[in-house]
């Protein structure tokens, strides 16, 4: 009897769950290609390369109300294993209203040996700030680092080493990690941050490395990226037409260097740290912006949007099918699978099938975590061991971010050209308060009239 039950559950999962399993199948096929190519890549990565000379590099730091984090960021640049005298640092202020400049002055006073510059724009705009920096930079390599990001001590050295050993590499993103003390807190926000840590670990430890090998990097991270000066100056630089200027530039650069067989990659050993997300609302806002940016950039870079079949053979098309087309199917089926109980399916079958789907996602996340874990250095592995159990939360976290990204698709179509993202939960709360207030007022009025 139990055998028949599990057979039914499997049938149910494969038949009805295909709408939710299909995105998983896309993930699994991607994972398989990741693992195979990474296995090949690992041997290449180990090939040693020693720098014969140390070129001059420029680090650009766009500053916007960054007083709290700027000192730590600049300190991390000062602490680089790369010779300080060969690092030019340009901070470009774009309309800060806090005391960021005083922080800069304090740092400059403390470290006169570091070539530091401060440029100021009279308005906010990260793209403009970065462009000013890119034009002013004199280094052979231009590296941009967000003011709320800090570099690992070998980051610049790894960037230069990788560029020098790969003449075809024109631009690269560094590897981003979330700077969170692991395994200490267990509040909701801590768990959210742990998930974020693992998400970044997988994204940069597997995803970006795979994209690096196949020359299909989707985004040169705005937080930490590096460019060959001569190539970046041939481009349109950062544009603010979309909410994702870094992805826009990545696609533009790819077009420029396509004929020259240039590559855009990821330097896994060049590590930068970012602060963990502060709240669920911030995570929502971030993911909405990412999804929206992705759609905007792809829309702009498709001369003519291809048919479904052609899209399937392009990496951008596959991303769109996975992130946009399948998102619509998942939307309905996420609710419909439990709803099948009301259409006549037995409750144990439906519950067991949903549990089975969770297990499928859990296994995939577990595998990703394991592979990403093996790709990092030993001290970080020890840190990660403290939160190994977070793997069980990852399917839930991905489920959450799926809804945020779906909201990004909707918001992108309904609120054009806006960086600000309204939190729908807050909107809903405001709405309920509004109606409650209206209701209370109505009751008072009625009472007053009766009085």
């Amino acid at each position, binding site marked *: *009897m139990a*055998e*028949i*039950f599990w*057979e*039914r559950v499997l*049938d*149910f999962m*494969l*038949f009805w769950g*295909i*709408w939710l399993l*299909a995105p998983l199948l896309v993930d699994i096929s991607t994972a398989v290609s990741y693992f195979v190519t990474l296995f090949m890549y690992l041997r290449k990565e180990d090939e040693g390369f020693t720098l014969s000379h140390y070129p001059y590099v420029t680090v650009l730091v766009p500053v916007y109300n960054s007083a709290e984090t700027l000192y730590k960021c600049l300190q991390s640049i000062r602490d680089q294993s790369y010779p300080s005298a060969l690092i030019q640092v340009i901070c470009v202020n774009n309309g800060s209203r806090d005391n960021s400049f005083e922080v800069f002055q304090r740092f400059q006073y403390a470290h006169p040996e570091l070539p530091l510059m401060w440029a100021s724009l009279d308005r906010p705009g990260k793209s403009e700030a970065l462009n000013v920096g890119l034009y002013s930079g004199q280094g052979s390599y231009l590296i941009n680092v967000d003011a709320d990001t800090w570099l690992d001590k070998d980051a610049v050295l790894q960037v230069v080493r990788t560029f020098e050993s790969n003449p075809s590499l024109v631009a690269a993103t560094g590897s981003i990690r979330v700077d969170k003390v692991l395994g200490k807190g267990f509040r909701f926000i801590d768990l959210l941050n742990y998930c974020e840590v693992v998400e970044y670990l997988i994204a940069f430890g597997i995803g970006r490395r795979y994209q690096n090998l196949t020359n299909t990097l989707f985004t040169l991270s705005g937080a930490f990226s590096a460019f060959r000066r001569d190539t970046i100056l041939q481009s349109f630089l950062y544009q603010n*037409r*979309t909410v994702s200027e870094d992805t826009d530039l990545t696609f533009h650069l790819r077009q420029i260097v396509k004929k020259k067989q240039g590559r855009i990659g990821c330097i896994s050993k060049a590590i930068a740290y970012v602060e963990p997300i502060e709240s669920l609302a911030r995570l929502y806002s971030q993911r909405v912006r990412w999804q929206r940016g992705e*759609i*905007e950039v*792809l*829309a*702009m870079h*498709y001369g003519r*949007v291809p*048919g*479904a*079949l052609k*899209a399937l053979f392009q990496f951008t098309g596959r991303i*769109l*099918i996975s992130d*946009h*087309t*399948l998102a*619509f*199917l998942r*939307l*309905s*089926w996420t*609710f*419909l699978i439990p*709803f099948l109980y*009301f*259409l*006549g*399916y*037995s409750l144990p*079958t439906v519950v067991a099938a949903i549990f089975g789907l969770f297990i499928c996602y859990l296994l995939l996340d577990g595998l990703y975590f394991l592979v990403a874990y093996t790709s990092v250095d030993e001290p970080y592995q020890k840190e990660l061991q403290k939160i190994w159990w977070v793997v069980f939360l990852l399917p839930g976290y991905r489920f959450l971010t799926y809804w945020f990204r*779906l*909201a990004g*698709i*909707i*918001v*992108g*179509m*309904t*609120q*054009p*050209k806006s960086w600000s993202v309204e939190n*729908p939960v807050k*909107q*809903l709360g405001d*709405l309920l308060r509004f109606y409650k207030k209206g209701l209370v007022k109505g009751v008072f009025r009625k009472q007053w009239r009766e009085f």
Partner: protein
Amino acid sequence: MKRLFRLGVYLGFIVWVLSWPAGARAGQGFVLDGAFDDWQGRAHLADGRGDGREDADFKALAWGTNENERRLYFMVERQLPAAAGRGCTCRLYFDVDCNGSYDNSVDKYAEVTYRPVAGGGRVAVELYSASGHLLAVYRGRWGEAGGRRFEFAVPMNKLGIYPAQPVRFYLSGIGAGADRLPDRGDNQWAPFPGTVKSKTGVAAVCFVWLAVAAILRRHRIWPFYYIWGAVGFTFIMVLFFQGSLLEYQVEYRTGMIVHRLLRCLDIVTYVFDKAPGTLLVLIKMDESWTTIDIDIESSGLLELCIFLGLVLFYPAYRPASKLLFSLAGVASVYLFNLLRLVLVVVAIYCGGRNMSFIAHTLFGRLVFFVLIVVLYWYVFTRPSLKKVREYVGSG
């Protein structure tokens, strides 16, 4: 707001008409009462005269389910015996795990004893496990007084069958010279008694759903508006259409179209007047029968409701675009579904009934899935990209 209200009224009226109960057209539910009008035009297998002992020479075996009830109903008709008053005992064997063997521990059989007496025939059903262990007994006046027909029902849980689980069965007399129906092989069937909710209750839910959707739209909380609108629309439409005239019509027409398409491929199927969407296929390879029930899912109605919900509430499109996409989408989904059904039957017909699972899940579902993804690409992704390109490009 006024426009939305007007649209809601129009839509409501259309849905109200379409969700009208199928009533007598689809056939009444089965009632164990010894009257047999409810078995007219239902799915059945027929058998010739003279191939069995006189008292157990079967003419037909019919089967079906009732909505909201997890029981399998059967009706046995005998060739009228010379001594009409003589009773008979027969067995209905169930291959519960659908593996071709009737001797597994989960398999069962129902021994049915029929005694025609004045005022209605007495029927006793004893349900046994394959090893002969008595599981349950059911009795009633469920037969004709004349000795020709009798009906009975077996609960699905006693048989150990989950809804939509395929099961095989055949009818056999007892003793030497007893008849068998079908003469060779058996019939495979995946009974799925649907659940139909009260339309009044659904209408009340619909009212609340519309009101919330209107508020979310008015306050431009687009993510919640879309999720609430699209998912709610699908749920409500499905609940409205379950057991409705529209479901009956769609299933009936789909069954007829598939029946004709298969005839072009030289695959003979049987359809029944009062069993909309039921196709009986003779699989020559297995020398057995397979019952294919086209329900709210396999008729494509469920997918249509999902698609329409997603299109009608997508806030990026103008009403004209929504109408265009809806029409094109409905036609496409229906065609894709026809293709899927034909593929499933062809796969089972060519590969035998053991292919059922692969045919349904892999051929049918995957092909359908791929085609739906293609449709969604053209309805959602491509136009969305064009629209985004317009506003981003316009600066």
